[in-house]
């Protein structure tokens, strides 16, 4: 197949100004941490971007104290309509500094600029805009109006700024104060967000950003003066958090792993379905908890769908995240790349057949080509475990009931996809799939008004929408 060559279309880096080192953002100021520092690197070049302070237990304690003070003296007492205006300010500044945030996110995370520009940043701003409007309307929410207190929030590296907004916006709208820990590989946009809080004149201590790795996160969620824990990340860490809060009065929401089935019936519009499959698993390099990582395709159309899928995958542009034509960026870290390689090798060892899109990968940085496995059975580890990379496992089915059985045969339950032209079948499947989000004839859509969260071992609680307020309000009727 002949394709046009694309000229390079790099987005300029000049808009961002990365400092050589960053401290912690506590009580409205950047301060030195008491722990060691670590480096944040660009996963597409392995270039060191900055030295980042690691918060130790003392730092966590200082941040929680600052948040507590801010909650009891300022933020928890402030009328909702005033809190709202701070959130609207933040939303506006995110929009104003949108390009800067997009470029910085792309550099630090490795994801394509196209995506940070069109998805991460605008939806982050939209979350603040949406929850700002709730701040003075909580009496209509169904969850009461009383804030919980101090929220300890730990977020992953796959959507750094977006996950920050999912956590901070509803917490603040409800009158809580927060201590947030971004992932150790992607702290930079959270630190820029701290600056945005300063520009918005947010009262000190309402938002505290502490950087570090697993130890810092553990110290935060187990701090006795944290009232609410919100975590997005792996099911394994989620389990340990669930254990650590046992016997306390802490509230918890967990948004964990997934192994979503993306189900394609024989009457589906094939080209749209193929786009949906590609978007489902290769969006954000497959670093998506709700990724459509198991393709269940009806046997009668499997060959056709696979042919078209491979053809489409061959046109994906993998490379420089800052190039505006790039579809698939860098794998976020060497560690994640090793995990993807390991599980892919296991896929082959267990008898599945690997096919990777022919593409030239850059010499430096962490890269993995868009890949699919055929001949996958339900027992294969690549059909059961979250790979969290651009790797699709393809299974087939004959009847709708077989599709339901296979789709639900997982300990996870975060999301699922259905592709068919038949309305009654969509509704039947949507009802039968045990997953918190079902995308029918679409995939990987997100919106601040739309609740997101899992069944089973994908965690509990919802983020987004009216339901997203529940975790941050004390209301008796938690509905």
């Amino acid at each position, binding site marked *: 197949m002949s394709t046009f060559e694309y000229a390079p279309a790099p987005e300029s880096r000049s808009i961002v100004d990365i400092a050589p080192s960053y401290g912690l953002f506590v009580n409205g100021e950047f301060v030195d941490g008491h722990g060691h520092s670590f480096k944040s690197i660009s996963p597409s070049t392995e270039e060191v971007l900055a030295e980042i302070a690691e918060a130790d237990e003392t730092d966590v304690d200082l941040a929680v104290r600052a948040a507590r003070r801010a909650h009891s003296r300022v933020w928890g007492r402030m009328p909702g309509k005033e809190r709202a205006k701070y959130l609207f300010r933040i939303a506006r500044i995110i929009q104003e500094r949108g390009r800067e945030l997009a470029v910085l996110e792309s550099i630090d995370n490795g994801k394509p600029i196209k995506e940070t520009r069109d998805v991460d940043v605008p939806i982050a701003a*939209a979350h603040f805009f949406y929850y700002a409007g709730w701040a003075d309307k909580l009496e209509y929410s*169904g969850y009461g109006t009383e804030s919980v207190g101090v929220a300890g929030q730990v977020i992953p590296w796959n959507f750094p700024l977006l996950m920050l907004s999912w956590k901070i916006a509803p917490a603040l709208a409800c009158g809580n104060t927060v201590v947030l820990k971004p992932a150790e590989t992607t702290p930079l946009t959270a630190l820029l967000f701290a600056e945005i809080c300063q520009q918005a004149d947010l009262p000190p201590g309402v938002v505290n950003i502490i950087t570090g790795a697993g130890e810092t996160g553990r110290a935060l969620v187990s701090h006795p003066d944290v009232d609410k824990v919100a975590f997005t990340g792996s*099911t394994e860490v*989620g*389990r*340990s958090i*669930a*254990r650590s809060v*046992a*016997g306390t*009065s802490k509230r918890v929401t*967990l948004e*964990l792993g997934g192994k979503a089935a993306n189900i394609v019936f024989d009457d589906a519009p094939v080209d749209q379905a193929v786009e949906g499959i590609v978007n489902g698993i290769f969006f954000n390099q497959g670093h998506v908890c709700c990724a459509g990582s198991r393709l269940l395709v009806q046997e009668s159309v499997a060959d056709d769908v696979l042919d078209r899928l491979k053809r489409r995958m061959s046109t994906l542009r993998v490379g420089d995240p800052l190039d505006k034509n790039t579809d698939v960026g860098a794998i976020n870290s060497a560690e994640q790349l090793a995990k993807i390689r390991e599980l892919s090798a296991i896929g082959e060892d267990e008898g599945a057949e690997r096919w990777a899109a022919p593409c030239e990968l850059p010499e430096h940085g962490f890269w993995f080509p868009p890949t699919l496995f055929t001949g996958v059975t339900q027992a294969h580890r690549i059909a059961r475990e979250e790979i969290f990379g651009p790797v699709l496992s393809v299974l087939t089915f004959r009847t709708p009931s077989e599709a339901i059985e296979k789709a639900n045969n997982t*300990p996870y339950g975060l999301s699922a996809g259905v592709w068919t032209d038949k309305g009654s079948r*969509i509704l039947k499947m*949507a009802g039968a799939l045990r*997953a*918190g*989000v*079902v*995308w*029918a*004839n*679409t995939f990987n*859509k997100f*919106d601040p*008004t*739309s*609740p*997101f*969260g899992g*069944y*089973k*071992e994908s*965690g*509990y609680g*919802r983020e987004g*929408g*009216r*339901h997203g307020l529940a975790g941050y309000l004390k209301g*008796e*009727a*938690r*509905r």
Partner: protein
Amino acid sequence: MSRIDVRKTYKLFIGGQFPRSESGHSYEVLDSRGRFVANAALASRKDARDAVVAARKAFPGWSGRTAYNRGQVVYRIAEVMEDRRPQFVEALRRGEGRTSAAAGKVLDGAIDRLVWYAGWADKLAQVVGNANPVAGPFFNLSTPEPTGVVAVLAPRESSLLGLVSVVAPVIVSGNTVVVTASPDRPLPAVTFAEVLATSDVPAGVVNLLTGSLDRTAATLASHMDVNAIDLTGLAADAEQATALEVEAAANLKRVRRAPAAEPDWSEDPGLDRMTDVLETKTVWHPIGV
């Protein structure tokens, strides 16, 4: 010569059947003054696992019923209870040491609570669901769904009103339940199971275990096919409640923590016993021609 009465054997209720404990064990149940009343089945770990299997098997059918139908079935439980008033009054008199009048009031409360919850079956989705105005051409709807199999440790003190107050909110939305009765006062629960068996409640929707929690609670808390656990029966037993919450993390069960003291069951229950065992499912579909 006066007639010798026929005594009842108090058994477990699993999958619509009334088996004895597979272990063959039973224990003495005493009345409020310490006098022997009956031998009840002492449920084993295996009984608990069997009950989970029965509850799982019943889940697709029960959750697949229309809300209207589930509401009628729960209402039917109230009808049959009303019909058996003397039996429950007697059981509460002996087990909880109440006067007949007080026992009657407790029974009123239990029956009325069932009626209240029955009415929620076809209203929950309207009150807790949402249509979401997303910023794009998509239909987007959030609806509640039952979480699955729920283990419930029923309260120790209130052996009937408390039991009904923790079971009804779980099943009305389509969950199935394995409930452990008050260990010291299990008999009203067994009689309640007999009501369930004659109230159009499908087999396995409610499964009842009697006996010591030491034998069953940890099995339920750590069971990988149980989706949620309500620790109400461990009121004021923080140590045991914490241990079970830790076990429950194995498969990230939804946990309703134990209260500091047994609740006042005469109070308005609110929605949270129902919403704690619901999942929110959000469905997206493009809008176009």
